[in-house]
């Protein structure tokens, strides 16, 4: 099972409480709010999708299945933008 990780050339910058991420491969930039940033930070190449959902769910006090759809969508979006490689499925 793949473990999503940040694309090697992504540039990030803190902008107050948000994170701006720029992917040279797609020339696209996006700002990550707190939820998206939490998912992004767990995409470090060491965790599967299930493990990412599990960690976030534990923090939020919900079952992992509750978050799976949103986490999957976020990682898919990161991949489309060139921010992340590997989808964890």
């Amino acid at each position, binding site marked *: 099972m793949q473990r999503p990780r940040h694309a090697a050339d992504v540039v990030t*910058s803190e902008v107050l409480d948000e994170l701006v991420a720029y992917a040279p491969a797609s020339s696209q930039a996006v700002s990550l709010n707190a939820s998206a940033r939490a998912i992004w930070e767990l995409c470090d190449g060491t965790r599967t999708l299930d493990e990412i959902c599990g960690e976030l769910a534990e923090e939020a006090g919900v079952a992992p299945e509750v978050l799976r759809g949103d986490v999957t969508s976020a990682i898919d979006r990161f991949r489309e933008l060139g921010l992340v490689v590997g989808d964890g499925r």
Partner: protein
Amino acid sequence: MAGDPTTGDDRTVVDQRFEAIHVGFGPHHVVIRSGAPALSEDLRGAFGPMLADGPVGIEAGTIVAVPDADGVRVGSGADAATTRVVDSDWAPREAYHEAIKLLMRARAELVWLHAGVAAWQDQACLFVGPSGQGKSTLVAALLDRGWSYFSDEIGAIDAAAGCVHPFPLAPRRRVHEGALLAQDDLAAIRRLPKVDVDFAPEAIGREPRPVAGIYFLDFDPGSDGVRERTATPAESVLAMLGNSLALEPDRKREIASLAQLAGRVPCRRLAYPGADIAAAWVHEAAVATSQTR
């Protein structure tokens, strides 16, 4: 003919045949050596307030424009070493853009944005947006209200200092002339002809000024008034990135600079149906701010 016009080896021959136009920006200038009077006239018209009487400060590079059988040969760079032949009608724009690029490269530490810039008293505002969003027309309307002119096209920003440098290309604005346009037909808007904006020489900004506000423009001719909302710093960074003019961008440094700017300067999205209405709104806001300082 003795001498080489591209290197200026024989200055006497060059001076006789190739008019030298000097364009200044801060401590730098670009020399444009033009072999065609009509092209020279176009360039003088386009650079307007940025023209200098002679070389001042550091030379950022030379542009040479020489008519030849196929059009106009335009050379650019430190020794006009990079050349290309362009159509005669296009040659003024080619030389114009190459000169601007040389000045931008000379000041690569600045953040360069597609923006109109004007100042009320000692505070400047940026009006960021792509072609067709009304930057030039809005800046012209602010000049009518006593603002100083910095640029209607290019924002040259020192993000660390939070200030913007004047880059006063000759201002021009689009005229509608009664043409029927769909409100979202940006391509049609961009095809509208442009006319020179009249302004007094004393209205030109000559010194950098602190950036007091950044407006991201949404021209909405179908709306019935100005709609304004605060743009978050992250949203502002994205909007400025989308209007970046950086030539060989170091995106990491650029994003960090934009984040620095967005974190210290109020940023707003401004949707408006016409330049006069927007200018009135912006002017009132600037006056109110200056009265509370």
